[in-house]
């Protein structure tokens, strides 16, 4: 890593104007086991240098997979030529970048040696064991699968205005699926975990066998579940759904590039957007406990990743910024510029997005709910510029008179995020990162995490088929 950092410092030091050079080596391993067969073992490695140049008020980008100094210098000139081409048509020029807390030094995250040190044979045996646990979890299980994957990254980031940082990190992930069948009716259960760090981080929420058992139980129980009635309902959202909600439906609307385009969060800094119980943050580090899946020590502009309070006690306080948007808004960058691979340019992205816990216990919240649902396990989710969201939910359990009742299936949850957050009337004292196996898409993927406590609010359930 020191070698890569020194190479970039050497190449960039002779450059005119603003140049940002990012060495990024990424390797990923994936193992797939299904119905007792190892169906997939693959290893992917991709490395190179991405260059951004700010010239005549416009950005140019070029990349090279060749790590020779001459190839990197050629990429700088390609990026400069591209910036000049862009400047001929760019209306709003980027004159200067704001001062930022630029990182210098090495910032390795824990777990790298531990995860990479486990042999391929051990990882295959682990995935096979968990798949077998799903398969043997009951007579109704007709199909089982386990996917293990890990991403290992090395980065070095150097800018002409002072950043010179390098780090290594590793992100292991585990996915388990069970399919149950009875009388021609199929249902599925899915469990996944992902972390930035070692095995302790990955398995903090349970063993692989316990995830296998839960996936199988969900699939089996859903076989006989009915669909819910559709319409507006009182819902208690588990940390996994809270995480998806704050990421998809709020987090994207406060990314400053989306704000500039006119998202629903535009012009609402200082205004109430949620109930006063709600405090929402997005952090480059893993708050409360180690291992959140979107953890980065330094962003891809070389800025130290901050913990940004987006909403404080219901009032919108900050957007998420890169250096360019921070200059436009006259604030400090939040360390939110991220690129998926060396050939990608950094975009404003979330990292670990979370709702701050409250004081009630989950039991108290359920007991205080006369008629509603407890929702856990997101299947997928989308949200809109308006903050309107739609999430598929794996497990929805009916609540009547303060007691958990039957499971229902095929549930979707929707609403307008800021409206829903205004209805939050209870927040539990638990905290869980629960989106660590998630990937966010915005032209390029990003590893993110999200979570929080249980919350109670009002939203719309998709219902009877």
């Amino acid at each position, binding site marked *: 890593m020191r070698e890569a950092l020194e190479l970039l410092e050497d190449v960039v030091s002779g450059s005119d104007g603003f140049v940002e050079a990012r060495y990024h080596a990424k390797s990923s391993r994936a193992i797939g086991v299904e*119905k007792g*067969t*190892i169906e997939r*073992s*693959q*290893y*992917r*490695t*991709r490395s190179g240098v991405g260059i*951004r140049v700010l010239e005549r008020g*416009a*950005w*140019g*980008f070029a*990349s090279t*997979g060749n790590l020779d100094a001459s190839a990197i210098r050629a990429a700088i000139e390609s*990026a400069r030529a*591209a910036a000049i*081409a*862009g400047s001929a*048509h*760019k*209306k*709003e020029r980027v004159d200067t970048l704001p001062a930022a807390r630029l990182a210098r030094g090495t910032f390795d995250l824990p777990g790298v040696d531990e995860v990479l040190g486990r042999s*391929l*044979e051990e990882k*295959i045996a682990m995935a096979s064991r968990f798949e077998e646990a799903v398969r043997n979890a009951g007579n109704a299980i007709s*199909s089982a*699968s386990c996917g293990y994957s890990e991403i290992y990254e090395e980065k070095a980031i150097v800018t002409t205005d002072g950043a010179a940082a390098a780090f290594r990190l590793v992100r292991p992930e585990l996915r388990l699926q069970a399919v149950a*069948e009875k009388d021609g009716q*199929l249902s*599925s259960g899915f469990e996944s975990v992902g972390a930035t760090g070692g095995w302790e981080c990955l398995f903090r929420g349970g063993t692989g066998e316990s995830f296998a058992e839960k996936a199988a139980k969900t699939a089996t129980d859903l076989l006989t579940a009915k669909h819910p009635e*559709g*319409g*507006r309902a009182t819902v208690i959202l588990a940390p996994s759904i809270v995480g998806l909600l704050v990421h998809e439906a709020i987090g994207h609307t406060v990314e400053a*590039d*989306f704000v*500039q*385009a*006119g998202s629903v969060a*535009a012009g609402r800094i200082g205004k109430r957007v949620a109930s006063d119980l709600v405090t929402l943050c997005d952090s480059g580090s893993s708050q409360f406990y180690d291992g959140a899946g979107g953890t980065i020590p330094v962003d891809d502009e070389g800025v130290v990743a901050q913990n940004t309070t987006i909403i404080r006690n219901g009032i919108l306080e900050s957007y998420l910024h890169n250096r360019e948007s921070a200059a436009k808004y006259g604030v400090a960058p939040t360390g939110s510029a991220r690129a998926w691979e060396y*050939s990608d*340019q950094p975009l404003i992205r979330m990292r670990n997005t979370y709702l701050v816990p409250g004081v009630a216990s989950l039991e108290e919240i359920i007991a205080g709910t006369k008629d509603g649902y407890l929702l856990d396990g997101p*299947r997928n989710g*989308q949200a*809109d*510029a308006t903050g*309107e969201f*739609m999430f*598929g939910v794996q497990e929805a359990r009916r609540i009547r008179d303060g007691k958990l009742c039957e499971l229902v*299936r*095929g549930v*979707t949850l*929707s*609403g*307008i995020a800021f409206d829903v957050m205004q209805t939050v009337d209870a927040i539990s004292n638990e905290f869980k990162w629960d989106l660590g196996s998630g990937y966010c898409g915005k032209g390029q993927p990003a590893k993110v995490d999200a979570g929080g406590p249980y919350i109670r609010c009002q939203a*719309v359930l*998709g*219902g009877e*088929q």
Partner: protein
Amino acid sequence: MESTQSETITDLCQRLVDAAIASGADQAEAIAGYQHTVETRLENSDVHTVQTTDETMFGLRVFAGGSLGFITSNRTDPNTIKDCVAEAIGQAAAIPADPLNDLPDHQELVSIDGLFDDATAAVTVDQTTEYAAQLVEQVRSRDERIRIDSGGVSATTWIGALASSKGMQAVESGTSADGHLFGMAVDGDEVASFDYDGDSAHDFETMKSVVGDAVERFADKCLSGLGAQSGRSFKGSVVLSPDVVEEFILGNLVGTLAADAVRKGRSPLAGKLGQKIAVDGLTLIDDGTRAGGMRSSSFDREGVPIRRHVLIENGVLQTYLYNHYEARAAGNGTTSTGHAGGGASSLPSISPVQLELAAGDVAQDSLFDGDEPIVHVGRFSGSTNSITGDFSGVVKNSFLIENGERRPIKETLMAGNLFTLLESITAISRERRLLGGAELLPTIRAEGVSITAG
């Protein structure tokens, strides 16, 4: 330049195969792709970043002792190749043998016309930037309330090659040009739903023509979201636009046609070959051989020739989709249908190539006839359980048609079951739209769908 690069890529594949066999692999297959792209990206209704990228990626699949190993990399120097071969062989040593592991034999390929354009291969960042700026102006002149969040114009030259120890040798090259926009309308405090549109062609000039039309559709979609009100709840008719037919119906249906999903008990269409699974008028074709098609190709991920297949004919399921592994697993003389999907970065999966739905027999406008309420769905933001077919989600860029009035709606959910919906289609339009230069799809009307107003 292109022929030299093709030779380089082909030579790389053969070197990888030879190195793997020399290291103890029983069989080896290498696939490589080279790509040169010039691109101008838009952000906040302005030119943002201009970029150029060049890269070669390769994938090496080996079978050693009957076991699989696979690696992919963008480094092609001798030391990296040596390490990659060792990694792939090492993986195979760690995995139990699978008797189904095998590479397909060499087959004759038929080249596809219209994939490469010399002028597009020579497109510069000045050209992509000039046209990207024109798109911004086209949108602005249409209506200043439309905001482009992001978008771009690009031109790509690509070469794909494959070689195997069973004599497979294949190479193909092409160009593609693309323009797309993502954004929404903002009118005072009102923010409408985001939407997107775009199009592609093998040559830059044709792309400009089709993207010009896509920009008008983008503007229409963005503006239609202004003034949207909540819909109303009922169980009844929906009219699905070609975009929804592509993303929602075909996007979920094709996974259940894949032979691996059938074999693993994940497809509700298992055991239904020759049976009726949809209404009479529904005929689904996969044709990756069409000249100039954006997904047309002479060979699949394993080098097997791509052909035209009728997947569903008048509602009757005709075939599943097979790659070489799944064909061997199916037995009874089953052969690959040329549906091995993926590229240099992945093991062969199973996917369709270029789908089309046969045209129906009614005019598109007549799909909206009748006295009962209808929801015209322009986009579906929802979740479909691929195993059960249950779907539920929010309709976007959508309208409620009732009592002769057509009004935009929001916060409205649509729910049902995909396989039930295939049997409740009541009309398919004569008119079809070519999406992304690849898929040719009509507008469809179906009944019995649950609509819930929020």
